[in-house]
């Protein structure tokens, strides 16, 4: 047994008072979950503490909270781990707060309908059957079903929504969970409207190109759904398979990244902007929207120059990498682009194809990476 201090963020909407923190001592073994500790408080000390919970085993998705500043399931976080990570890592104190990006109803309970479920409904979250519907089952490849099962594994807990940085800036962003739900249909060979779904999400200014690749949702997800990876896959299917050129310039912006890395080995910020609007052509620089965007980002550029984050030379001419390294970078491009099928790097499937001996001999991530390269 060990003693922990649970510091719970309390909020009683009927009291007229602001939220506050209340501390409780609990006595539990370190491998017990934060939820068990909260339930001990509820059962033995204070029954008024509010938290949604049901299965206790990370399947129902009810108990999404922030633990020491990190989003996750209370039932899925061990006390010792919780007490030693995040904002309060003193080994005994565990701060538990409601999830972010959603209004708080009471204590640790947030209004998921107002945000999470609205966004899920935004992506037409049901199968639109390919016609004709067969008399028996649709015949579809085994791999496709395993592939969409990754997004089917989402338990709608909201942990990814809680800490989505893009959503913090743009509350209308469709967000990680709903995007993963969208991939569940886009990746399903039985769905009839792959193009329409992608076109819709690409053209929406708050759609798939609104994600900034911060990886927070991948860290937050307790079920390995990797929402950001699903967003990237939506983009790849949208741009590479359906050639959807969206009015948000998402597609061109992505292409600009690719062509710059291929050409320079590193990002060339001064080129990124014009290329994102005007494409790779030299005349693209004179795209009016590029000029406008450049003008509006001038203060940021100036600030960067003044603080020495870049030199004028670097800003205008870009980084230089040794030609050997540049060739190596380009070799990666050649190799990837010469494949008949696009690399999906779905670790949910390919990350474990290694056999036991190999995995035991090398560090797991390395083994997984080398395996997927040769796959």
């Amino acid at each position, binding site marked *: 047994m060990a003693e922990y201090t649970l510091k719970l963020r309390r909020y009683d909407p009927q009291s007229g008072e602001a939220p506050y923190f209340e501390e409780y001592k609990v006595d539990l073994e370190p491998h017990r979950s934060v939820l068990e500790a909260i339930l001990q408080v*509820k059962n033995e000390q204070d029954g008024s503490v509010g938290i949604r919970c049901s*299965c206790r085993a990370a399947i129902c998705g009810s108990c999404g909270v922030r633990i020491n500043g990190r989003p996750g399931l209370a039932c899925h976080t061990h006390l010792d781990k919780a007490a030693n990570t995040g904002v309060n890592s003193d080994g005994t104190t565990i701060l538990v707060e409601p999830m972010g990006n959603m209004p708080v109803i009471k204590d640790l309970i947030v209004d998921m309908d107002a945000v999470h479920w609205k966004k899920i409904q935004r992506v037409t979250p049901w199968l639109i059957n390919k016609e004709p519907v067969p008399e028996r089952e649709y015949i579809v490849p085994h791999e496709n079903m395993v592939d969409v099962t990754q997004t089917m594994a989402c338990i709608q807990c909201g942990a990814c929504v809680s800490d989505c940085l893009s959503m913090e800036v743009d509350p209308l962003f469709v967000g990680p969970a709903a995007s993963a739900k969208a991939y569940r249909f886009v990746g399903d060979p039985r769905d009839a409207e792959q193009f329409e779904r992608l076109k819709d999400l690409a053209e929406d200014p708050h759609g798939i190109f609104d994600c900034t690749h911060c990886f927070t949702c991948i860290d937050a997800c307790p079920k390995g759904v990797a929402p950001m990876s699903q967003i990237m896959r939506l983009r790849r299917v949208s741009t590479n398979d359906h050639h959807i050129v969206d009015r948000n310039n998402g597609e061109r912006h992505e292409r600009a990244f690719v062509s710059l890395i291929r050409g320079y080995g590193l990002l060339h910020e001064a080129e990124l902007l014009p290329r994102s609007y005007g494409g790779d052509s030299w005349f693209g620089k004179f795209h009016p929207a590029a000029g406008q965007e450049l003008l509006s980002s001038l203060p940021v550029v100036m600030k960067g120059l003044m603080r020495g984050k870049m030199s004028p030379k670097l800003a205008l001419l870009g980084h230089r990498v040794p030609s050997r390294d540049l060739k190596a970078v380009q070799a990666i491009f050649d190799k990837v682009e010469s494949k008949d099928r696009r690399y999906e790097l779905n670790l949910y499937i390919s990350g474990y194809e290694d056999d036991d001996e190999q995995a035991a001999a090398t560090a797991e991530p390395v083994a997984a990476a080398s395996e997927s390269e040769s796959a």
Partner: protein
Amino acid sequence: MPAHDVLIIGAGLAGQRAALAAADAGASVAILSKVHPVRSHSVAAAGGINAALNPEDTWESHAFDTVKGSDYLGDQDAIEIMCREAPDEILWLEHAGVTFHRSDSGHLGTRAFGGASQARTYYVADITGQAILHVLYEQLMKHHERVDRYEEWFTTTLLQDEEGNCIGCVARDIRTGTLEVFNAKSVILASGGAGQAFKPTTNALICTGDGIAQAYRIGAPLMDMEMIQYHPTTLAENGFLITEGARGEGAHLYNALGERFMEKYAPNKLELASRDVVSRAEQTEINEGRGFPDGTIALDITRVPRKRTLEALREIVNIGKDFAGVDITREPIHIKPGMHYIMGGVKTDFDGQTPIPGLYAAGEVACVSVHGGNRLGANSLLDTLIFGRRSGEHAAQRARGVAMPKAPTSVLADAQGEIDEILNRPTGGRRVSEIKNELGEMMNRYVAVYRDEEGLATAREIVQRLKQEAPSAAIDDKGTIFNQDVLAAIELGYMLDVAEAIVMAAQERRESRGAQFRTDFPERNDEDWLHHITVSQNGDGPALGTAPVTITKWQPQARTY
């Protein structure tokens, strides 16, 4: 006040399937649940769903396996319906979007499961319940114009008119604390089981027997309540479920001496005998000193190829890692039998109708009875869907010939009075959680795998004492917004009613059949006990009764695996 043709209470698989079926049949539908529908406990069903869909399989074979699994206590007419309709239900789910596992040819693939003579379990990795539940919810979102959803509403009481018809319910909006009368021409209970009356249990915290007790309180008989399934593989420490799919994929059970003991108890089916048989075998090994020091058995999944385990048993890989610190692909995991399912419930016919006009029940809350003395793995999802759909269709049809009822507004004041009584209880009594704990531990001690008269009599006494203590259990939360405390007090009352019925039925059945094993009556006795036991409320307390078992083509025979 909301009024619908069909009101469904509970939004797990049975409830959602009923809602879609009733809406399809043209009824106006409301579905009401104390948790958001995707939090329902159906989400935890792991292994799969049975159907004789493969051309080489037959529904008769599925039905016979089910009858044998039930230890001949299942009603064979209902079992025939369930097994006949199973293949079409799988295809309906597949077309609705369930991502069922495919074989290399792209067709639906199956896995083996306990008590079955064929591999006929269709599955989505080991998240089958979740995959189906979420797809049904997708369909509810799609049909939002035809199905009104009341999410996070807690039913406090079922309503009846003067003729005894069920005409709706009173429910509390958990978010606001407001009580509301729901009028309906037909009411379908789909609120699940009562596992929380046991501790530990694989069941979620929400499984508190609400619907079973609500129906019982207005006079509906309960049936087969003594039949409590102990699942053979639950985590020793906290009772979490390790899916039967593990054994379906080839995992073995070993005692502390390293013996594959199932060879003694079920030489043909071994680990894949029916659940009552495997649980009893494990308990015998443990009781006779051949278990591990912590009172457990070893489940060895390392025999299953690692890639297969990671793809098809992903959830239990995580459970092993997160809740037991064990990598199941590399070492055995320690398990023991644990309370999992209640075969009994509100007595219904095969259209879900209870003896109370207008009241239906489907899923774990109900007892059709297709499971009899012991449910086969992967038959519960099937039960919820088949009888959920049939209830929905029948309830919609019934609604066409009935005028919209209107409950008197006085019912609201009554319900509010009951809640106020709980809120105003003086402090000083035992805590709700304390009583619940004592109940759960007691049930798990005396009403478990092995039972006898002495233990059951003790259990009865304790339940009765707890029933007296419960009404004075004080609560801390006096608010109206998300007051979970007051709901827990109401749920405790439900669990105690259900526990009493379970204990009485177990005392009454003086034989061993299916999940009921009486050490004082160790044999099955078809002459005296080949019938259902019912428990109903008759004014001054619970009364026992019987109901015949329907036998169509399979006469009882000795049951070996």
